[in-house]
């Protein structure tokens, strides 16, 4: 490849990869739960992505591609290996737990005030890594099921069942706090029919 070709390639790498910098960092920090490790992870991801860019097919999904590099890099890091060792092999075979009657019949208004941000963040932090990543890709990155499936290299059905289990775990974690809050709102007369 001549010099101008290399430049062209760099141009498009930069154009594709730089806008994702903040999001990739955020995702890396959620995975590693540590600032230094998140920085290392992002840096390594960019290095690998730049090296492998010639194998990336322009016109296909760059975001899924670079997230996949980041995630694989994490999973093969020391911390990642440690984390995944605690994930049972039959993680995805687990039966869909029966939702409790309460959960099915009384969809409590999830009125999360700004003050409960921290609460929610803590609950997300405590999710098993396979739940945390699928939830963040869906809700924060707003990826489609197909994109998540490409990123995580698992079938769409697995994406859906992990998502639904992640949300259920989160809801059951939050429920005590939420009901309390809903009660407060009613008491204050600020509930306006949600």
């Amino acid at each position, binding site marked *: 490849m001549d*010099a101008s070709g*290399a*430049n062209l390639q*760099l*141009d498009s790498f*930069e*154009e594709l*990869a*730089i*806008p994702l*910098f*903040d999001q990739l*960092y*955020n995702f890396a*920090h*959620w995975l590693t739960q540590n*600032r230094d490790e*998140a*920085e290392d992870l*992002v*840096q390594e991801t*960019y290095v690998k992505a*730049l090296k492998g860019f010639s194998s990336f097919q322009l016109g296909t999904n760059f975001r899924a591609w670079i997230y996949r590099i980041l995630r694989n890099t994490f999973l093969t890091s020391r911390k990642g290996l440690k984390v995944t060792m605690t994930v049972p092999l039959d993680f995805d075979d687990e039966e869909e737990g029966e939702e409790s009657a309460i959960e*099915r*019949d009384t*969809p*409590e*208004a*999830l*009125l*999360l005030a700004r003050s*409960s*941000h921290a609460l*929610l*963040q803590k609950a*997300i932090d405590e999710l098993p890594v396979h739940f945390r990543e699928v*939830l*963040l890709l*869906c*809700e*924060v990155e*707003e990826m*489609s*099921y197909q994109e998540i499936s490409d990123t995580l290299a698992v079938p769409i059905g697995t994406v*859906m069942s992990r*998502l*639904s289990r992640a*949300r259920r775990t*989160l*809801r059951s974690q939050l429920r005590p706090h939420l009901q309390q809050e809903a009660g407060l709102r009613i008491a204050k007369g*600020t509930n*306006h*029919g*949600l």
Partner: protein
Amino acid sequence: MVCESWKERLDTYVDGELPQGEMRTFDAHVSSCPSCSANVLSRLQLKRAIHLAGKRFTPSAEFRSRMQQSIASKPRRVFRLGWMLAAAVVLVVGILTSTYLGNRSGRDQVFSEIADLHVATLASSSPVDVVSTDRHTVKPWFQGKIPFAFNLPELQNTEFSLLGGRMTYLEQTPGAHLIYDVRKHHISVFIFQERSLAAKLTDRSLKPGNLSFNMQTWTQGGLRYFVIGDASTADIDNLAKLFQAAS
């Protein structure tokens, strides 16, 4: 019961991932079933809360500049357009933010939030999630993503063009955000359910302060509309009228 079969697909529905036919059937069911609509709303709220809470960590300035340098030190480029644009956007957003942060008070908080949404969206790398100038494409895209339906005006023989739309949230209330173009200005139209916002809106809170945008807001058919942009008052009014006529 019909609901039981839907409940298993609630997550897929709120993620907008059911096949289109099922999305429509579910829409129809949700609008007539209090239990499912409450369920959908609570899930949408959780989605929104996670969306906000999930944007938690920002890279340090030191790390950012280190990475920028390491990428920029690769073979030279003639024009660093990407970076220049990014820098320009940061600058503009900085200026706008400080402009209305300076004016912000509880009184015009709703207006400021609408202005925030408008600015933040235009500054993002992908302002719209459904890119289309065709209202017949944009309108159905919102089905199942927000708990209400609305009409979009016909734009033929007007100076407005539709760029696309995205989902948005105001005070955790889900709504539609549409972006229009007129004479090189972008105008945002926001639509929410009035009853979800009512408690937060008072006549006073809707008065824009001395800010750099023009805005129109009104309620119609149970929906609250906001039209905002740096276009002229006349353009904002005209787009508002088109919406009022279409609803």
